[in-house]
């Protein structure tokens, strides 16, 4: 493989700028899709991408491209853009020079696994899904990505990283009275082919869950006390709270900055939320360095209900006099970084899951999210739920959405269970046109009072 460092411009290429950085990456991706016993597609993508980002006279200029050999033209373009901003007040928090060569972690490198083997495993999962009586259609997705990246900046940092990312999914659709219902299991890990081989173990549980979903009746809308499971609670922590903690949403909004002032009480004592880039090197949200060359870190955002941290880029940290957290991330080198999460976690509490249900008494147990959108007013679609009576789950229900106001809901958290589960699913985080960014989640079960459920 060619050494991307050979293309890097140097300090002499950037006269009279305050800060510069360059990112180059070469990416190759293989995708295999099998659906209902047929191979749907075998596809391969190979891309070079790069960008130059410059801070001059308080303004940012950015220029991205596909041809590495044109990098110096884009230095000129980015410098021109930055100067055109003219008289801005943007700055960066400086950092000592970083030098690193990061190696990918994997057991079986995807390039060493023949395509025929990838196809064979995908076909076997498709057969396993279709062997189940409730399954009308089955889909299997396999994807591997091998990436070579280099980052350099005006501080003298040079970070070279090799990444191997595995992504896969099994999707089954059944029907109740002709109405299709879909369930899926998926992963995105910093791992090799071994991740796909492990996916097969999850299929029996998923099929049992699909059966339960098919048997569920439509939920009735209204206000409920709820226990939400880790798969939806983790998405809540990310979508509703995590995005609000991204400093580039509020660093130039004095009123919103006041709402998000550190030390404020925002939630009940039962809830602690953390963003942790360094938790587990296998997770999609694991990040040794962000796209500004800042080391990843663990940031406690909400500590027993009190706001204790924000997620920062160099720019937002400079503007707000905050600490660098290493959360400036771009979807790929065609995009400038935004403040983004890594692995977002609700920390476990003391109670057992049974305790939570007992305390709930009457209400709804909500299981798994199909997705959500966040901010102050959030909405998550649940896959399935159970009506809870006398602390016991009874009737399964479906087709409902959990919605609410972030600030109210954080205060309505009653308790968290003592067992945290972590997820690194195939989807990703979207912000603006940058989707899907790899992120992970973790959470215990969470008891929340007065949640608004949208149903039929």
């Amino acid at each position: 493989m060619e050494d991307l460092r050979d293309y890097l411009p140097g300090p002499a290429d950037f006269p009279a700028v305050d800060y510069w950085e360059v990112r180059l990456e070469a990416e190759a991706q293989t995708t295999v899709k099998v659906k209902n016993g047929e191979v749907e597609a075998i596809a391969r993508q190979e891309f070079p991408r790069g960008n130059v980002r410059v801070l001059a006279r308080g303004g940012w200029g950015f220029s991205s491209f596909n041809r590495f050999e044109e990098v110096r033209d884009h230095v000129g373009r980015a410098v021109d853009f930055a100067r055109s901003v003219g008289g801005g007040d943007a700055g960066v928090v400086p950092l000592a020079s970083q030098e690193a060569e990061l190696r990918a972690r994997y057991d079986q490198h995807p390039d060493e696994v023949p395509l025929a083997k990838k196809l064979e495993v995908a076909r076997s999962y498709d057969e396993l899904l279709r062997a189940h009586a409730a399954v009308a259609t089955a889909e299997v997705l396999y994807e591997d990505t091998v990436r070579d990246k280099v980052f350099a900046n005006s501080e003298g940092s040079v970070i070279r990283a090799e990444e191997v990312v595995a992504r896969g999914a099994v999707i089954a659709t059944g029907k109740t009275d002709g109405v299709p219902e879909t369930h899926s299991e998926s992963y995105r890990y910093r791992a090799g082919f071994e991740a796909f081989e492990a996916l097969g173990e999850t299929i029996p549980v998923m099929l049992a869950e699909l059966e339960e979903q098919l048997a569920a009746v439509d939920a009735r809308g209204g206000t409920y006390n709820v226990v939400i499971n880790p798969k939806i609670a983790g998405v809540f922590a990310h979508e509703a709270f995590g995005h609000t903690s991204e400093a580039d949403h509020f660093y130039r909004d004095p009123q919103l900055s006041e709402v998000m002032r550190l030390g404020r009480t925002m939630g009940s004592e039962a809830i602690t939320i953390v963003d942790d880039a360094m938790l587990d090197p296998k997770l999609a949200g694991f990040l040794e360095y962000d796209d500004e060359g800042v080391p990843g870190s663990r940031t406690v955002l909400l500590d027993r209900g009190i706001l204790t941290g924000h997620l920062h880029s160099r720019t937002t940290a400079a503007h707000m006099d905050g600490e660098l957290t290493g959360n400036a991330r771009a979807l790929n080198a065609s995009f400038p970084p935004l403040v983004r999460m890594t692995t977002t976690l609700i920390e476990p509490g003391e109670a057992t899951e049974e305790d939570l249900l007992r305390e709930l008494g009457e209400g709804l147990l909500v299981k798994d999210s199909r997705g959500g959108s966040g901010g102050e007013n959030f909405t998550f679609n649940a896959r399935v739920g159970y009506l809870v009576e006398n602390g016991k789950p009874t009737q399964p229900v479906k087709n409902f959405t959990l919605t609410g106001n972030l600030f109210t809901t954080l205060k309505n958290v009653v308790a968290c269970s003592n067992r945290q589960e972590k997820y690194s699913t195939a989807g990703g985080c979207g912000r603006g046109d940058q989707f899907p960014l790899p992120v992970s989640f973790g959470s215990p079960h969470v008891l929340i009072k007065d949640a608004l459920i949208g149903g039929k």
Partner: protein
Amino acid sequence: MARESYDLYERETDLLPVNFEGGTLTEIQGRVSGFATCRVVAEGKAGYHTAFGVGDEELVARATEAAAYGPELDVDLPGPAPLEAIEVYAEDLAAVPAGELVAWGRRIIDGVRDGLGRELPVTVKLTREIERFAVRNSAGVDYRHAATALDVFAQVADAQEGDIHDVFDFEYSSELAGVDPDRMVRTIVDYFERGRETASFPTGTATVLIHPFALPQFLLPLLVGMDGERIKDGTSPLGDKVGERIFSDRITVTDDPFRPGLPASAPFDGEGVVARRRPLVEEGVLRSFNHTLETAKAIGHEPTGGARRGPGGKPTGGVFNLVMEAGETPYEEILSSLDRGLFLRYMSGSGQANNLAGEFSMGVYSAFLVENGRLAKRLKNVMVAGNVYDVFQRVAAVSAERICSWVDNGGNALMPYVLLEGVPVAGS
């Protein structure tokens, strides 16, 4: 398809985004990216390869390698045909200097602040876009097309603990003159003033007036159900419904590739199928699906056009521009006739419910309580949920006015305001 055949889709996107944060110009970007994706059918099997800057021959060779393991595929690639003229490339927009976009941004920020009489933070993102794409195939097609677009997003926020009052507007066009910064200022100021007080709505059913921005969010289940892939695999509830009434007869929706001003207008689609104006739902009756060459052939339908190609390789069915036929009643008349109901301008959580089954379940992002024919208060903590094939039976009115809108998963739309009765609501 011949024993060995190929088609290639090539796209280059050149963006010039100018970003203001909190009223301050912070960043100017130039983003150029491109790819070429190739599908080869060799020995009756398909392979896909996507890359940048490697040339047609090399792409075809690499896709042929993938085809050795690929799925069997039977498609008839279109041959060359005359193309309709559609002009969505504006020279003046393509050449617009960043400085002019900066001036537009300042005008919006100053206008909103003057209009509200407060120095609130205003975010403005203006992006000039040039998109060029080409389709070439082994049947002799060699088409190219270019479009310009100006996208302008503006948002003002008044954040208090427990209530962030924000209002956005979005306009886009293939021409500079198609976006009006002063109109955006008036829109933002007007909605902001009407939303000073907040309200919820009791759980039950309500009459809802849907703004053109939210309408495609409600129609998303229709698009999912019309997807040729879903028709082919039998999961769509619409598979056997062509010619049947699925919506109120007041609803007519068309894929119109020839709309001036809409940047997605084009004379051919991602597979080189010649674009045509195509009714999707005509006076409530389902007329068409959104096929790729593959899904159309698989079930014996004619190609529809509207297919999209991305770096992922395999084409997907879609539309150029989702256009709903205007009605006869002026919007103001529809609004003033509504004693009590919901005005839904934009929703959150679109696309998450069981769309394939027709379900929607969305929270309000920008919405108002209508009382005595006026937008009285801003709605908070309200959801609507139901089934499109049910609620679109009860269309009470369609406005005479239409506004440029968009489909959340990509695509341009031109939509009226629609009044629906008996929509299930959850609130407090």
